[in-house]
């Protein structure tokens, strides 16, 4: 059974239909990447999964259970974690407090969870008393991922984790995604950086105008001349 399944969903904002009969699936332990041009509905698909948008038709299922438009705190308790693209840290809070907020729904000691996050991002440990608002873009992305990982989620959803980062940091963030995945956490990400994210992904989906255009193993999509022409810049 897939961890996450978007089954024939049509949805949008207000009167505007953005997603048309979208299908998507994430299996246990996979990295799945959604690529596509601007306005293809990539981020909208993420918001749909995280209950910020209701499906008009179709359903979103987490381990077989319908979670269409479920409240975010319920999804968090089930093991879904979401890192938005922008404004994804609490700027006024310290790094450590950001991590604690990620575990708000949990009771019990947080120290072991914090240690795991700090092991993954040693830089966050050095800066744990600093306010997240004073950190660089790359460090903030780490804080945001760390906050989501505090839940020890089954599925981590990342909306454009590399957006606006210097090339060196992009590589670092993708490396961290791989590390997270190596711990058995499935990852669903949306990326502008199609080439890098498809190299990383087990499978990829190409969206265009809110529809499934293509899908398949990341490597196959990279080799597809059509994908190369349209989304990888030749």
């Amino acid at each position, binding site marked *: 059974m897939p961890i996450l399944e978007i089954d024939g969903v049509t949805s949008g904002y207000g009167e505007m239909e953005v997603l048309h009969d979208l299908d998507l699936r994430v299996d246990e332990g996979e990295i799945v990447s959604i690529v596509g041009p601007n306005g293809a509905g990539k981020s909208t698909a993420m918001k749909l999964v995280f209950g910020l948008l209701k499906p008009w038709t179709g359903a979103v299922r987490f381990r077989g259970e319908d979670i269409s438009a479920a409240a975010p*705190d319920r999804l968090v308790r089930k093991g879904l974690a979401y890192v*938005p693209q922008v404004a994804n840290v*609490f700027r006024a*809070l310290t790094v450590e407090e950001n991590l604690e907020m990620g575990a*708000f*729904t949990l009771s019990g000691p947080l120290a072991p969870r914090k240690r795991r996050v700090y092991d993954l991002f040693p830089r966050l440990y050095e800066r744990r008393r600093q306010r997240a*608002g004073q950190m660089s873009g790359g460090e903030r992305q780490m804080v945001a991922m760390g906050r989501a990982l505090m839940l020890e989620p089954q599925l981590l959803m990342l909306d454009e984790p590399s957006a606006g980062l210097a090339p060196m940091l992009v590589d670092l963030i993708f490396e961290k995604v791989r590390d997270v995945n190596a711990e058995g956490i499935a990852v669903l990400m949306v990326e502008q950086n199609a080439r890098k994210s498809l190299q990383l992904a087990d499978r990829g989906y190409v969206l265009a105008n809110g529809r499934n255009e293509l899908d398949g193993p990341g490597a196959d999509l990279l080799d597809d001349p059509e994908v190369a022409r349209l989304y990888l810049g030749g």
Partner: protein
Amino acid sequence: MARTARTRLRAPDLSGRFGLLVMLAVVTLVVAVAATTQGVAPDRLLALTVRGVMLGGILALGAIGLSLIFGVLNLPHFAHGELMTVGAYLTLALLTILPDGGPLAPFSFSATFLLALAVVAPAVGMLSYLLDRGVYRPLRARGAAPIYMAMSSLAIAFGLRSIVYLLWGADFRFFYPGRPRPAVELFAGIRVRPDQLFILGLALALIVLVYLLLERTKMGKAMRATADNPELARVAGIDVERVVLFTWMIGGSLAAIGGAMYGLDAQMRPEMGWWLLLPLFAAVILGTIGNPYGALAGGLIIGVAWQLSSAFLNPAYGPAVAFVLMILVLLVRPEGLFGVPGRRA
């Protein structure tokens, strides 16, 4: 659009936090010069500063809640002054019921006053939460525009004030009419009433308590997180509904105590909270909207400026001083003392 307007409004060499500090220094200087030309003695200025810090403590009690409510709920809570009024009058009501054991020397109030405060504060906190459940929450759920939220809180302000008028009348009221309130010498010829020292002490103690709550407890951190970024708070799984409950309980309780303190220092009238609202908003804006620590700093600054101005102005203009400060802040540094330039609070 808003960004360009703001840039245009900002005076070129007065931008940033430095500019705001320069502005505050200039205002202080103007006050000092105006006072000396009018022949006000320095020790009187010192005494007014002490009184200003006390008044600032009262304002801070209201402003901290106002700032938290704006941060967490995006609601400019125009009824916050009335929560102070209601707090003061409910305290008065309890005092008339409770048996009185005589004044707690050297203060003018009796032990029952403290008991009444302990009952009234959470009661007003709960009242404000119930108002949220009944009025603001349904509006939020419908995605009402900010102007409707603001107007509904204005309507509640008028409603609460009318109820106070109905129950207690329009006259001045005192907690202990006729009881003497002698001043004692503090130091260097500065005379204060013991009540005023109590007010300052209680305000500071409550502010320390709020600080500990916000910095050390999980719920406090969640409140700061929600004020900082409500969207992210939701997707991080923070129980926003409980955060809202705590925000109202704390905001309402502090406002009620602030109102009772104001009544203890001066006297009560039904429109007292309404007149405090402007200084409260000035304090909140000065200290960056949504930042409770900024509200504390803003409250103290406004309180001191208000009192100092009374050295050469009719004291009735006190709120106008707050108003002028608020306008200056909006022109020089709209994001306030602790804000990030170009970013909405």
